[in-house]
């Protein structure tokens, strides 16, 4: 009975991230539009887009290989599995011990690996430029992410997200310089990984500065739908990750009653909304940078992560 209930909760988590992800992106777009004094499309527009794309036929480039056709599903699966492991409204889910934070970062790395390959599959210059820049960004974002993970793991004594959340909510963590640095580094990585302004512009097309959109240029129909959905999920994943670590309140513990779960869900949606508003505010306030300014931006994240880890190593004996 308990097992079935646990599995149900895990299932609810997997379904909720999938269902909430398009709404989150729609919400961010709506707020951005309102901040620019535009009406903007409705917040549920991404769902309509996805359904429309799913129903359309796929127009496949003549020399696209099997890898090009498999990649959208693989990317979606990698992102979905990663998102399902993050404690969103409840901790210690049935499969939360399957992968720790390092593995979650690596799962996103796998998704990126295949997306970059898909960009090169058709053999167009746009695909190449996108893949080449994506891996350049990743070579800085991934180590920054890992160093942030080191910082958190050293404070919590574990790389398991549920444990980290539990430690962060306990009182003896307090305010730490390392944590602040880790938070800033993580946000910078999240912006870069989700191809948001100032690193990349999610709304742009036909522009030589684009990265993510250049890679997926040849995709259409259901393939594009899967890739879009994966991108929505990734944004949700990062906001959930940051909120689970730095705002770990109202996460339902295992065995808690049904009210705790509902409360956790409400709190989670509120956290997502806060994240979305902050993201929209930040994006409206900044301009996109040149591609070769991105390494400096991410280099700062890397150095912050490094510094945070080093501080923890050094302060351990004091």
């Amino acid at each position, binding site marked *: 009975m308990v097992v079935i209930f646990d599995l149900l909760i895990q299932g609810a988590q997997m379904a909720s991230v999938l269902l909430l992800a398009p709404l989150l992106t729609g919400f961010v777009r709506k707020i951005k539009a309102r901040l620019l004094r535009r009406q903007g499309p409705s917040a549920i527009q991404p769902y309509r887009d996805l359904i429309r794309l799913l*129903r359309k036929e796929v*127009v*496949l480039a*003549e020399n696209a290989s099997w890898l090009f056709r498999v990649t959208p*599903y693989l990317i979606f699966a990698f992102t979905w599995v990663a998102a*399902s492991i993050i404690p969103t409204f409840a901790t210690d889910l049935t499969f939360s011990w399957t992968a720790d934070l390092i593995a979650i970062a690596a799962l996103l790395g796998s998704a990126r690996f295949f997306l970059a390959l898909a960009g090169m599959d058709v053999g167009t210059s746009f695909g190449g*430029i996108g893949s080449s820049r994506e*891996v350049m960004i990743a070579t800085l974002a991934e180590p920054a992410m890992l160093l942030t993970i080191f910082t958190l793991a050293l404070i919590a004594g574990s790389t398991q997200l549920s444990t980290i959340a539990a430690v962060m909510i306990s009182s003896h963590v307090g305010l730490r310089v390392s944590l602040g640095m880790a938070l800033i580094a993580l946000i910078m990585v999240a912006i870069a990984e989700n191809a948001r302004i100032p690193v990349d512009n999610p709304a742009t097309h036909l522009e030589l500065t684009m990265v993510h959109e250049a890679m997926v240029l040849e995709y259409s129909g259901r393939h594009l739908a899967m890739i879009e959905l994966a991108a929505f999920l990734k944004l949700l994943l990062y906001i959930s990750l940051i909120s689970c670590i730095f705002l770990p309140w109202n996460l339902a513990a295992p065995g808690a009653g049904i009210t705790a779960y509902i409360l956790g869900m409400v709190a989670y949606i509120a956290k997502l909304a806060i994240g979305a508003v902050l993201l929209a505010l930040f994006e409206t306030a900044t301009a996109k940078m040149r591609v070769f300014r991105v390494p400096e931006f991410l280099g700062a994240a890397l150095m912050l992560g490094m510094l945070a880890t*080093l501080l923890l190593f050094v302060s351990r004996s004091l």
Partner: protein
Amino acid sequence: MMPVAVVLWCIAVLLGISVLAVVISRSPGATPVIYGASLSVSVGALAIALFQLVTAASAPLVTLVLPFGLPWLGAHLRLDALAAFFLVVINLGAAAASFYGLGYGRHETAPHRLLPFFPAFLAGMNLVILAADAFTFLLSWEFMSLVSWALVMTHHRDADNRRAAYIYLVMASFGTLALLLGFGLLAGAAGSYDFATMRTHGHTPAVTALVLTLTLIGAGSKAGLVPLHIWLPLAHPAAPSHVSALMSGVMTKVAVYGFIRIVFDLLGEPAWWSGMVVLMLGGVTAVVGILHALMEHDLKRLLAYSTIENIGIIFVGLGLALAFEANAMELAAALALAAALFHVLNHSFFKSLLFFGAGAVLTATGERNMDKLGGLIHRMPFTSFAFLIGAVAISALPPFNGFVSEWLTFQAILQSPNLPQWGLKIMVPAVGGLLALSAALAAACFVKAFGITFLGRPRTLAAERAHEVDRFSLVAMFVFAVLCLVAGTLPGIIIDALAPVTLALVGGRMPLQTSVPWLSIVPISEGHSSYNGLLVFVFIAFSASLTASCVHLFASRALRRAPAWDCGFPESATQTQYTSASFAQPILRVFGTLLFQARETVQMPAPGDPRPARFTLKKRDLIWEGVYEPIAGAVWYIAERLNHVQFLTIRRYLSLVFLALVILLLVLAIWS
């Protein structure tokens, strides 16, 4: 019969095959006979080594003494857990390479230059592992080096190969010299050259430091530690591809074995700074190796540089193990050592696989230059699939094996804040950062390797006319592809198999993994950190196929082929695709300005000027220029000066000898 004796017989049979190959290698049927025989012997040795590794805890250790070698010493041979593990790595790689050779060898233009040395190379590597005295060890080490040199020289008409082989020979002799001196110090004044006596010696800190340095030079040069890596990217690709796979996937592991044997086993208690030195070298090696790999356009040389990176990762694990052992943290030391050994195994899997793939591409197109390939995924579907798995695995991505060892290394790093020394406290997070950087760069590197070679449109006629390779080569690749997945999804079994090795070397072991529910792996204890490759794999496979079938069932399955979109501006010339250099250019701009001193210049003619615009990229290899060129210059200078000594009369020679004798006796007199 004792396992060690069986392995010895296998070595003897391999040497016999080698002799047979000398006789028959010019006959047309020789290739399958030699590779077939090598295959069966390797499989036999593999079975024995596996059996020995599993039963290592219970079986008594026997040292076989044979009346070879130095008359007062004899040849000591022993098969302990560490040796058994490395024998598994060697013979697995050897068996697969032999199998691959059954098909690949048919295209060999000079089999008589390759076949006699191939089994001898396998024999040499096996013998290094078995050796339990310094003389046998050095003899077989040098034998292995010389035979592999002969293999590098297989295609000796190519001037590049001759140069590669020459540099290899110089570096290998230098490395052996360092090891010889190291063993001399270990043996002490009494000159006891068998390992059992060496273990009992205590050493002064100065001797320990000297032995560590000499071992780092000797074994490190063979493994490809920066800055001693210089020969590796030249020599490994020069050999035929299955030999490249053996050299990169297996022979570098013999070097790692040499390092572990001397530093962990023979040298006794390590000092904490030895861990720091090894850590630093490992971290630098990993990043320098993978950055070089990223800049490469020759597929096989890219793989060779990536070997340097992986050796760096292995040495980071070993350095951590030394640091933990020096501070009596057995559990953490066992974790770090197990991570390093796991990576040894993993690297032998995926690097062999990737070299086999590069060999298949070479057979199919005659090209190693990625910029002349492209679109091979259509013409060589099986090779490209296997290569893809190797590329994912080596990029440390789940659910494959590369990620597991990387994950274990990170977990070991997270154990290190408790180390008391300040040097280590600062070095370990820095190396952690380097390791994270090298993992990300490795993924970029293999996106490039796979993307440029196999994806896109064919850039030349040769790539367009490629054809799938023979079944033997494919089977050899797929065996390793499956092993990559198995090691990635069931890592607990391998970690448990490593327990006797870590117990023997650092006196600790990781918790028993196979008893953990759901076959997860836990580095320290349950509830601390865990990873379950099997479930990750199942989840990904399940959700991907579920989504795909749902979409196909309920949404749409219509598909139309059309010309590429490319923003409405498709370019028909295949030369406009990204090349290996253009793909790596952003990364070169970010990381290369320091390491390679890369300078880009664009010469844009004035408007109306019909001359073409020019883009020049200048790169320098600072290690080559800063370390090797001065040494080579100095040697050359001294040789020039001493040249006239070659043309003296016999009277002068005799007086020189006399003078030398007097000086030596004087030195001796003053010394004592």
